[in-house]
């Protein structure tokens, strides 16, 4: 069975209320074709996990502008004034998470870890509601794993078994999100035959990938 499917087929896994992870740093590494597909599909009340909301009309910014996000976990929303406005108007429920903690929580979700201890956020509002532990005289917060229903990724090169290679700074959250969702869909900027990526340089093994959509 081929993993390569149409945009429509892939996005049938995203319904109203679905929890979705989307990578990208200010839009770099974000699957634009899949995001555009979500906008067109008009699914609503999404719970979105991402590191930033980019700029209006760039990457994840499009999903903010279209009003499809009900709940948001992110580390930074400052570059997209729309997000702050909608948060203040009570339209989006935003939780801000330090970027390193967010990456590690997603990784933990994919790696079967029950949580981890980080010094980040100790003594700040981030510690509210969290268990604190002192080890060897240093304080840590217990942070819990994160998972999603669907992850939408962007591979610079993807082979037909779903092995992915990311170019330059596009990698960011892609590799972690690939491991932490029930359904993983990759937008292939370049779609290759199996064997065209050196097995040593595969960054997301194909076993994590359920569907591939050819990007534009």
């Amino acid at each position, binding site marked *: 069975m081929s993993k390569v499917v149409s945009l429509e087929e892939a996005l049938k896994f995203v319904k109203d209320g679905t929890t979705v992870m989307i990578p990208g*740093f*200010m*839009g*770099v590494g974000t699957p634009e074709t899949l995001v555009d597909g979500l906008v067109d599909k008009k699914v609503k009340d999404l719970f979105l996990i991402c*590191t*930033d909301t*980019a*700029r209006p009309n760039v990457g994840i910014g499009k999903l903010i502008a279209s009003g499809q996000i009900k709940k948001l976990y*992110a*580390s*930074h*929303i*400052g*570059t997209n004034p729309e997000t*702050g406005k909608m*948060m203040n108007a009570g339209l989006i429920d935003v939780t*801000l998470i*330090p*970027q*390193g*903690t967010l*990456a*590690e929580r*997603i*990784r933990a979700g994919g790696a079967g870890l029950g949580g981890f201890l*980080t*010094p*980040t*956020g*100790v*003594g*700040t*509002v*981030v510690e509210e509601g969290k268990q604190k532990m002192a080890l060897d005289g240093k304080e840590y917060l217990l942070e819990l794993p994160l998972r999603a229903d669907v992850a939408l990724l962007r591979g*610079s090169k993807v082979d037909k078994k779903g092995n992915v290679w990311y*170019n*330059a*700074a*596009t*990698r*960011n*959250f*892609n*590799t*972690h999100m690939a491991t932490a969702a029930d359904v993983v869909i990759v937008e292939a900027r370049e779609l290759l035959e199996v064997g065209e990526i050196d097995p040593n340089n595969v*960054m997301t093994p194909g076993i994590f990938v359920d569907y591939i959509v050819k990007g534009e």
Partner: protein
Amino acid sequence: MDIRERIAKRVAKDLEDGDIVNLGIGMPTLVANYITEGIEVILQSENGFVRMGPAPEEGKEDPDIVNAGGVPVTVLEGAAYFDSATSFGIIRGGHVDATVLGALQVDQEGNLANWMIPGKLVPGMGGAMDLVVGAKKVILAMEHTAKGKPKILRSCTLPLTAKKEVDLIVTEMGVFEITPGGMYLREIASDTTVEKIKEVTEAEFIVDDNLITMED
């Protein structure tokens, strides 16, 4: 030389050969222009690479290579790209020798507030909380006051980025070091006096017996 350049130039003097350094967006970015000739400072960009180079020539921007502010940059020979968990492992794990950041407020205990103003500005902490906790040395590059009001306080009033992590504060008026024994004024700009600094500094500080004059 404008005060931003003066501050950046002074911060650069604190960087040593071989240091791995993360420069925050805004004024800290200028530090790269003043690194001592003949030494190698390796710049880390928390969105996923080391050995960041200067901005590309116009028209030669690569959309896959941006810095942590989303601005196109280049990488130098010997660069390496990685994912976000690795990037923040580098930061949190103490592999970054110094981070240079801006501040909304800092206090004499080394507490830093630079990520939000409740009810007004809630951009999110991005990678700042991880950087301040993880970097071996935290250097603030900041204007001494905001609209004439002190930013160097007895105790921060804004939500903290991290507790007791700041090591050095560089402003256009001088250089402060925060030590377990208190905050010291180590250097003073040639165009000011200790009295003038005291007027615009709420924090208590000790004037170094060997107070040095800062380079313009």
